[in-house]
């Protein structure tokens, strides 16, 4: 997974930091964004191997970004992370390749990153 790059958009500090640490441990370049709109701008300008989106964010929510990105970059893998397990089916229908429910555990991080970056 070394030399791969991801973008993780998440407005909550602790989740952002844990993903950053996981990526560091796997040797993955991790770009962090706190705002949905800025995350979309960054994804439009730069190339990533994987984009992980929190669902509920300032600016734009994860599903709104996903809809736009699916048109711009249809082959880019998109993963949603949400704290609301009742919205998993809706997020999957939006076009996310996977949906994870918080809090993520060590195995979830490993599976998520290995699935799309190896």
């Amino acid at each position, binding site marked *: 997974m070394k030399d791969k790059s991801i973008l993780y958009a998440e*407005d*909550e*500090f*602790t*989740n952002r*930091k*844990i993903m950053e*640490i*996981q990526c560091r*441990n796997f040797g993955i370049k991790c770009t962090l964004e706190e705002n949905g709109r800025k995350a979309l701008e960054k994804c439009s300008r730069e190339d990533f191997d994987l984009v992980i989106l929190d669902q*509920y964010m*300032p600016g734009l929510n994860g599903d709104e970004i996903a809809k736009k990105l699916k048109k711009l970059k249809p082959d880019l893998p998109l993963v949603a992370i949400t*704290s*609301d*397990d*009742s919205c998993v089916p809706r997020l999957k229908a939006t076009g996310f390749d996977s949906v994870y429910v*918080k*809090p*993520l*555990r*060590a195995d979830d*991080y*490993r599976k998520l990153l290995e699935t799309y970056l190896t």
Partner: protein
Amino acid sequence: MILLSEIAEKIRSEIQSWPSHQNLKVEIQIDPSLNNTRKGEKDIFTELLMMPAGLLHSSVSLIDIRISGDDEKICVSFNYNTASARSIQLWNNLAEKAAAWNPQVHMREQGVDITLNLPVSSANPPVDLEAMARETGISIEDARTILEGFLVNAKSYVRILRDGIGKPEKKQGIDSYIRAAHSLKGAGRTLRAPELAAAAGSLEQKIRENGDTTEEQRRLEVIWDRIEFWFEGNGYER
């Protein structure tokens, strides 16, 4: 350990996610004087309380759940606006699982009361640093760094909620209060701080419903005080 407020939040979100009960309004009230922390397996307790809700006839449009009791037992009353509670008799199939709690079930025409021996548990630390490190696969040193950052961020969320809700002269807007409560809920889950997650989750829900948040804010303040004292006692600056 069981946190009554956490279970209540889980039940509410679970019921409202069922396609057959999308229009069902769920009101859950916990007696504010009741100790929130109880001995026992929370999964079994949740299952027991979900069972009566799962058996409701589709014509029911409102379920009102009230949790009361004392330090030794709790009483959960389910009240429905329509239909009968006959199907609730199926609940007895689950009673075996709760035998240690000596369940007493009282049927009423439009509801059921369940009393369980559920004594108060000694309070756990409000943040479980080792569990967070172990479960997320990060080092204790990294977990400590995250905790320091959390304290700074969480303080600002608590301040937004404390200063803003219910004060029309403040112009932050309801969305900022929902975000603040939502972020505290998420951080609480990540940090393995279930009381914080439950209190913030209840508050977020109440703000979304545009309801009276007095009780939820009081509960959040109580747990936030505990967390701040815990930080101080563990060598973090408040």
